């Protein structure tokens, strides 16, 4: 016993966060960060809910004067934005960060500092968005922010800038969280937990993470382009200058539709977890459910156009997207019937989490059915942008996402806090939430069919909408009350609820084998599993290698935070690795980004540049070796034998997937504008210069070769890195020189704007490559023989492959397209149809009248 106690103390010491304010700003533990995500997201739920109550109050009767038009438009914009970006996604991410390491039997996430950084980005981004209320310039363009309404001409206040910068900041948190969770799930599962033994919640998070890495870049790109249009006049979305407002809609919905499933899939994962435990039966048809999760993830990327059925897309295309949208009913149906079969065969207990799950099934299935209806293109011509759609997506998002989140919070609360919430208050909250929800949103279907468009701050008396609206508003108050009861229950429990046992529900998963709340290191001895429900099965006898690995890890070597890598598919023991401890640098990096964004927001160039410089400085500090450059080498020189691939390599790979998708979105924008304006370059603009860009791309390729040499040959490492750096700098110089002497301005035409952004993207990637070269060079000079340095070099090589690929692709596109597409002078918008139409009307200046 004494030995075990001592081991526990040593582990506790190694993993503990410092106390007090220092601990608060520098904690990186997945449980601290996960809890912060959950609590912050819940606060934003209350903020978004308050906004909803105000909206509903305004609509309670016709011609109501409670809110003016401007305030109403601000409130529905912030309501949607808050619920999507600041509540739903961070909430499920926070739950995943807290729970997944426990569920898969590991101690922490693979990149704890990155995780902390994600939280600070989320918090600061959320604060930035809501700061707009204090300045009066509140975003008011709707949560999907269609251009040109949100462009510089029709939204001249800073409101949209708050929106674009705040949302992008929060999206960064989403991307790094996704990357982190994916690497965690793929590399750190307990020995024996093969892919097909993972809990379904973990499956849902894995799929969701993949989706976020691909989907979020599209909206990040769309936002960057719009901010460039607003601040620098680059006309991406301006049809008068070779832009196209529909480009925004495509980019936004390429993100926006997967976004729905990014919220929904983790929620279904929660449902699977809750049903199994509270029906005391494993989920039926596990393999089908896991396959359904993957299928939904893939299909969701093929549906975006069904948000655009009213923009005049050819009927055939509409039908194809309708078919694609309807197919998602199959994987959804599989999940629903798997839950039903489990309930039929199990012995359900009607606890609060289970009630929320039943409420979920009833509501979500209804929302799914109306989803098939609105995916039916012809019917959508009626339903689109009406209250029918409002009803539909609230069925999906409240019924399908909020109910499961509440089920999950109640279910895991004893684990996270160590106290059991009251069942009575929980059931009361369910009753209010469920009844209130349906009273609020069922009538909205009818309102939509009776012609009420969404986003109207008022309506006349003669249209017959008053009764339904009054009922809906009363329902929304009940729903709001239910949420408050739920919140009150948790807060009260947190302060003085009955103490929870380790496993209050008789759960199946590894999370229930930890203390409530878990110790800072989660497991004293890392678990080994042999089935899908480890707690319901006899403990396996691990093989010798596994046993020795988990035994070794019961004592932290030299106080390091050691974890176990396992193989991706079979989860066999791979190697031991260490993660860094508490540090405030993630916070300072996030603050630096905030400084830069505020600089952009208030048009303060110095502040923006200062922020950017601080980001680089903080990032370099962040990338120092464990213990810092000056630390005694003995504390880290004898790191464990490195795996074939360090964890950071996988992290970078996924990060590059996301950055590559940003680049891909820039390319999409380039080609979309090229095609819809009928060929590039526009009249009067020649094809781009060849010499300097070609020199630059050759330099980048040569530098990449040098980086490769540095990675393979230890003796040539330093000179090769120096050479690569010089080549990279030369390429950067050539690019900059070329862009400085462009014969056209990027603000003149969509062509120039897309051309320059694509080139600038390649240059930013190149700068990142050069900075990392600096880190690699420093490591090679100061710690030439360390495994850490070898890992840095592996990562540098991977990055440079990406740098070179980007340079070559961008060079090919910008050089070839103007020469191939012919540029018939065919700016379609040069002979804009609406001019001819407008001149047919009135005195002929209608279209051009100054306003």
């Amino acid at each position, binding site marked *: 016993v004494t030995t075990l106690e001592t081991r526990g103390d040593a582990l506790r010491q190694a993993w503990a966060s410092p106390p007090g304010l220092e601990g608060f700003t520098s904690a990186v533990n997945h449980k601290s960060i996960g809890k912060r995500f959950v609590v912050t997201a819940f606060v934003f739920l209350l903020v978004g809910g308050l906004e909803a109550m105000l909206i509903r109050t305004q609509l309670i009767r016709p011609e109501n004067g409670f809110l*003016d*038009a*401007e305030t109403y*438009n601000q409130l529905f914009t912030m309501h949607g934005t808050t619920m999507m970006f600041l509540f739903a996604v961070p909430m499920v991410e926070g739950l995943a960060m807290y729970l997944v390491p426990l569920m898969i039997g590991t101690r922490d996430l693979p990149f704890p500092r990155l995780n902390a950084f994600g939280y600070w980005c989320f918090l600061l981004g959320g604060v930035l968005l809501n700061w707009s209320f204090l300045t009066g310039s509140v975003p008011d*363009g709707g949560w999907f922010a*269609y251009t*040109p*309404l949100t462009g510089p001409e*029709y939204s001249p206040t800073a409101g949209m800038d708050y929106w674009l910068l705040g949302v992008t900041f929060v999206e960064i948190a989403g991307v790094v969280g996704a990357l982190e969770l994916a690497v965690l799930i793929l590399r750190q599962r307990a020995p024996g937990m093969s892919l097909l033994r993972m809990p379904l919640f973990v499956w849902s998070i894995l799929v969701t993470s993949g989706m976020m890495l691909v989907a979020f870049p599209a909206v990040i790109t769309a936002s960057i382009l719009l901010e460039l249009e607003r601040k620098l006049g680059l006309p991406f979305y301006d*049809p008068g200058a070779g832009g196209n*407002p529909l480009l925004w809609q495509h980019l936004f919905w390429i993100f926006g539709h997967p976004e729905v499933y990014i919220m929904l899939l983790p929620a279904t994962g929660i449902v699977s977890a809750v049903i199994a435990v509270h029906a005391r039966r494993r989920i*039926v*048809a*596990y393999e089908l459910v896991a396959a359904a999760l993957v299928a939904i993830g893939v299909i969701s990327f093929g549906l975006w156009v069904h948000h655009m059925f*009213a*923009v*005049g897309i050819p*009927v055939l295309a509409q*039908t194809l997207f*309708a078919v694609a949208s*309807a197919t998602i009913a*199959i994987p959804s*149906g*599989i999940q*629903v019937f*798997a839950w*039903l*079969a*489990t*309930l*039929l*065969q199990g012995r359900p207990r009607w606890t609060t989490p289970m009630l929320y799950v*039943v409420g979920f099934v009833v509501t979500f*299935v209804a929302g799914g*059915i109306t989803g*098939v209806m609105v995916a*039916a293109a*012809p*019917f959508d*011509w*009626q339903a*689109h*942008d009406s209250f029918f759609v409002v009803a539909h997506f609230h069925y999906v998002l409240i019924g399908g996402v909020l109910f499961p989140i509440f089920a999950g919070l109640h279910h895991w609360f004893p684990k996270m806090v160590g106290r059991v919430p009251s069942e009575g208050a929980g059931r009361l909250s369910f009753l209010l939430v469920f009844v209130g929800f349906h009273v609020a949103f069922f009538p909205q279907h*009818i309102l939509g*069919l*009776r*012609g009420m468009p*969404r*986003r109207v701050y*008022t309506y*006349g008396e003669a249209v017959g909408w008053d009764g*339904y609206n009054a009922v809906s508003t009363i329902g929304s108050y009940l729903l709001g009350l239910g949420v408050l009861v739920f919140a009150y229950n948790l807060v009260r429990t947190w302060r003085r609820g009955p103490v929870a046992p380790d496993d209050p529900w008789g759960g199946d998963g590894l999370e229930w084998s930890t203390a409530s709340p878990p110790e800072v290191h989660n497991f004293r001895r890392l678990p080994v599993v042999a089935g899908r429900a480890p707690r319901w099965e006899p403990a396996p006898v691990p093989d010798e290698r596994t046993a020795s690995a988990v035994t070794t890890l019961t004592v932290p070597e030299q106080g390091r935070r050691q974890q176990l890598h396992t193989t991706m598919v079979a989860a066999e023991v791979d190697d031991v690795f260490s993660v860094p401890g508490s540090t405030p640098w993630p916070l300072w990096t996030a603050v630096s980004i905030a400084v830069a964004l505020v600089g952009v927001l208030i048009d303060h160039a110095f502040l923006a540049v200062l922020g950017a410089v601080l980001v680089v400085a903080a990032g370099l500090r962040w990338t120092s070796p464990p213990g810092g450059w000056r630390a005694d080498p003995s504390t880290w020189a004898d790191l464990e034998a490195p795996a074939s691939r360090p964890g950071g390599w996988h992290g970078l790979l996924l990060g590059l997937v996301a950055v590559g998708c940003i680049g891909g979105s820039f390319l999409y924008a380039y080609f979309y504008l090229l095609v819809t304006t009928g060929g590039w370059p526009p009249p009067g603009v020649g094809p781009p210069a060849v010499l300097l860009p070609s020199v630059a791309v050759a330099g980048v390729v040569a530098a990449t070769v040098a980086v490769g040499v540095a990675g393979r040959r230890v003796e040539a490492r330093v000179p090769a890195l120096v050479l690569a750096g010089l080549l990279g700098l030369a390429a950067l110089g050539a690019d900059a020189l070329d862009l400085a002497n462009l014969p056209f301005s990027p603000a003149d035409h969509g062509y120039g704007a897309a051309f320059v952004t694509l080139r600038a993207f390649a240059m930013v990637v190149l700068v990142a490559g050069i900075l990392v070269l600096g880190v690699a060079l420093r490591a090679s000079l100061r710690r030439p023989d360390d495994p850490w340095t070898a890992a840095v070099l592996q990562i540098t090589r991977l990055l440079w492959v990406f740098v070179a690929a980007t340079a070559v692709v961008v060079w090919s596109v910008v050089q070839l397209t103007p020469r191939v597409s012919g540029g018939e002078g065919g700016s379609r918008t040069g002979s804009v*149809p609406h001019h001819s*139409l407008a001149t047919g*009307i*009135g005195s*002929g200046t*209608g279209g051009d*009248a100054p*306003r």
Partner: protein
Amino acid sequence: VRRLAVALTAVLLGTACAGEPSALDPAGDTAAQLADLWWLMLAVGSVVWALVVAVLVRAAMGRRDGDGEPGDWSGQRLVVAGGIVLPVVVLVPLLLLIFRVAEGLSHEPRQDDVRIQVVGEQFWWRVAYENAASAVDANEVHVPVGRPVTLELTSVDVIHSFWVPNVAGKTDLIPGETTHLRFEVDRPGVYRGFCAEFCGIQHAGMRLVLVAQDADEFDDHVRRLAQDAAEPREPLAAEGQQVFERVGCASCHAVRGTDAAGAVGPDLTHFASRRTIGAGVVANTRGNLAGWVVDAQGVKPGNRMPPQPVDPEDLEALLAYLEDLE
């Protein structure tokens, strides 16, 4: 009880009274096809939903013992039947039907259609009839019954969307593009319409009226719209015309046949024939008109018309002139 049931059904299904907008009270074949599709989908969807809830209730009522094996066959079978077979059986015929309806209601304009151009502006609709170059109107679209109509839609500022629920689905008005909405109305009447795409502060106040009338009446209406304004018939109205030009109305509004040629706001040549003021926000009555002229911002905050400080006598004359523009 029966009457109560009928009334309840009416409330739940949203049956609209005359004059109230509703996609389920079709005024013509186009909207009728969409409404039929809705009723069919509602019926099928309700059955599917009831099925799921029935299984759920069954699960709640019956208590079973024992923990079935993970690969339990009967459970798997339910999942395959409900999750794969059921959606396929329901969706394949439905999708085929949807494809047929969509094709039949294609918005591609055809040769013999009545063509009407509609331009969206923040926050009103500019309307022109193709068969009479100067037949210009605003916020009111007249169509003949029994003839296919194609609207040619575009916008000069932000994206709007044209929606008259009783008549057809909606189509967006997009700057830099021309989109089409093709439909047929069979039942004469006056139908309310709305801008359905959020377009700024007065999105809610961007409404319209669609008037379906017999072909003769329609032709008369368009012919009249094409004419210049008649000379004021009464002295007060003539005085009002001077006020119109003096206080600056003419800098934004046109009255064809006079010097007033502003093009920022709606053409007022046949203003008195319109049913509404401010793009469907209030009825075109004398009182509403006076309120609108003096303080349009009070009626529809955020629209582009500035308040007009007109003294009472001038206002009388101005109203007389405007009411004379038939």
